[in-house]
């Protein structure tokens, strides 16, 4: 009897402690003189460098916006939460940001798995969410409140395929991907599709996990098949070693990758092995265009490192959000959503950002060559989305009229 009595007491006490007057607050009302922006990412987990870069980019953007007077006269306030890279926690913190912190919009996450977990919460609560760097097409399919400022895996995968086939004239390719990474799997799939469509042959598909101490097993297998190029769509932490070990095994063919390689640490990890390697990326820190250089300088002054593409994308996401709030004249959720989805030709650091009907950013990618001697990514060429006219040889983001032709 006491058992039951106490069970009831326990349940009731939790219930009453959680009671709150359910009002009409859905975060969509302008409250006070600040606009709250929720940011969620991995700050203490295995991909904390991504979360940190993203937050840095957003913080810098918000600082600049507030210094210029804020948006519609109101200052932006960033409320950030750590999800430790776990999808369950991503969902929990976004729920907290919306219900408790009453944010007006959300920025995040980097890993598509986490964005996929959290997006439905934002969609249901009618709070716009912009992901700076999730590239899995499914993320924006969750609903019309979810958008992104980066290109998606199908596009990025095909970029390197085109580069290999057309520029490097490769006939055969091997792929070495990260089995635990949805990003890597997506790129693998689309690279293979495009490369095969262009007449090439993928002779081997190997995989590794991020905790592998050594990749020579997989590399030796690939070596036996002697492909013209190897596509390694993984993260810099492993890629640097893969490059080194490949060269140690006598494999000197070009290595290709995606924006996951973009980190200042890759030079230390890969060293000279990174000669003759190329990646697809959102932007190039070398681009002489003034907006990009201003961004790079400001970021370096604040954080003491060169910004990687995650920071650049996060910066753009924050600025797109601010611009949308201005256009919407406030933070009313439906108007804000429409303003974000109507973003057109926004001059971002990572290129001119236009959101298409599926709320994905349509913009060209750059192919960069790694120069380990200088520790820089050197611009090689631009590859535009299918159907657009070929981009002029200038790097994206420059404020010339011709770049408008590159976007659909």
């Amino acid at each position, binding site marked *: 009897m006491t058992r039951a009595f106490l069970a009831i007491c326990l349940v009731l006490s939790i219930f009453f402690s959680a009671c709150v007057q359910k009002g009409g607050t859905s975060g969509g009302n302008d409250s006070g003189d600040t606009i709250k922006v929720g940011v969620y990412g991995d*700050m203490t987990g295995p991909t904390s460098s991504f979360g940190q870069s993203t937050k840095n980019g957003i913080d810098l953007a918000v600082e600049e916006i507030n210094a210029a007077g804020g948006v519609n006269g109101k200052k932006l306030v960033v409320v950030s939460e750590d999800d430790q890279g776990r999808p369950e926690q991503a969902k929990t913190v976004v729920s907290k940001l919306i219900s408790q912190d009453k944010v007006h919009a959300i920025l995040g996450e980097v890993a598509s798995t986490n964005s996929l977990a959290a997006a439905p919460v934002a969609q249901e609560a009618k709070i716009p969410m912009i992901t700076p760097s999730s590239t899995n097409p499914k993320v924006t399919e969750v609903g019309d409140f979810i958008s992104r400022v980066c290109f998606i895996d199908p596009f990025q995968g095909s970029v390197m395929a085109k580069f290999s086939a057309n520029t490097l004239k490769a006939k055969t390719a091997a792929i070495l991907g990260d089995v635990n990474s949805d990003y890597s799997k997506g790129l693998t799939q689309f690279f293979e599709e495009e490369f095969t469509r262009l007449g090439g042959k993928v002779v081997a598909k190997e995989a590794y996990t991020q905790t592998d101490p050594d990749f020579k097993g997989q590399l030796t297998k690939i070596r036996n098949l002697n492909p013209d190029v190897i596509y390694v769509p993984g993260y810099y932490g492993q890629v640097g070693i893969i490059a080194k070990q490949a060269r140690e095994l006598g494999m000197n063919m070009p290595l290709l990758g995606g924006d996951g390689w973009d980190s200042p640490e890759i030079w230390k990890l890969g060293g000279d092995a990174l000669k003759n390697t190329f990646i697809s990326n959102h932007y190039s820190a070398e681009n002489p265009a003034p907006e990009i250089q201003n961004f790079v300088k400001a970021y370096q002054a604040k954080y003491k490192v060169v910004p990687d593409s995650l920071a650049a994308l996060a910066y753009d996401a924050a600025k797109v959000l601010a611009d949308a709030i201005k256009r919407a004249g406030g933070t009313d959720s439906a108007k804000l959503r429409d303003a974000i989805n109507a973003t057109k030709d926004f001059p971002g650091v990572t290129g001119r950002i236009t959101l298409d009907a599926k709320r994905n950013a349509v913009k060209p990618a750059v192919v960069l060559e790694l120069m380990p001697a200088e520790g820089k990514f050197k611009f090689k060429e631009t590859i535009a989305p299918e159907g657009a006219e070929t981009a002029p040889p200038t790097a994206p983001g420059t404020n010339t009229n011709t770049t408008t032709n590159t976007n659909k």
Partner: protein
Amino acid sequence: MTWIKSIIVGVVIIAILWVMNAAMSSAGFFGIGIDDYQSRLVVFIAINIILATSLNLINGFTGQFSIGHAGFMAVGAYSSAYFTVTYGKAIEASLGALGETVASSIVLLIAILIGAVVAAIMGLIVGIPSLRLKGDYLAIVTLGFAEIIRIVILNIDAVGGATGYQVPGYANFLWIGIFAVITVVVIHNIVKSDTGRALISIREDELAAEAMGVNTTRFKVTSFVIGSAFAGVSGVLFAHYNKFLSTNDFQFIKSFEIIIMIVIGGMGSMTGAILGAIIVTILPEVLRQLPDVQLGSTIIRFADLRLVIFALILILTMILRPQGILGTAEIGGFFKRFRRADKPTGGLK
């Protein structure tokens, strides 16, 4: 307790859960509501209660070292999710005549059955070979099995692979709460039964139990299977409430969280397990509110120390009070003092 009392208590509990469930919906319960975030916490408390009590049966009452409980949760979650994703709509359609709530509840119950059975089978597969081992070895083997399960699921693209698996939302707090209560009641009854006494005897001194004629292997496997079945149930409920599954949520740290729950509360105490579940669910969220401190040019975010604090709490508990908060006591014990002395039953004293 007479059966009339049981029914009344059952009805009252269900009524409370139903009210809370209504409060969690967007309309609230006559205007009183619980916001999204807090609802989520309450639901997780209930799910963690199921996890903690089921692990307590294995570790606390039978004295075995199972540290791979998240594996069984994952198995239950993914198997039931696959079922509802593939057949859920079809079954709902064919049961359409009964109305939406009944139809979806039936789908959920079938899913729970599937999850529990698959997890129980997994428990059998893991248990039979492993339970010959003792202590530390058993711990590592259960850990190994949980990792293998996770790696295998990760490689199955049909359930989402690395991207994650989207699951229809058949579970709400009413059902989750009901199953939490069912779990506690069932395991409590097991513990108080003859089976329970056998399990406790195994915990106390396995050799002596064997010598007394207790078939230790059979009982160990039984507790393992029951424990994993309930872990599977919690997985099903989690999957259909969270509506999203990713193997990243079932890594070793998850098993470890469940262990912390029963250790802090007191292994071998049902109330302890429940208390531990509540603490472990709420504490990290409370710790999120820790302020940021500016030291010179760097900002120290104390909220990022959540896990360090957790580990410290665990180690200090082990050093200072290894039996946990409640030890093997139950909350009923507190109230014994206030009850009148039992009437003598006659016969010899």
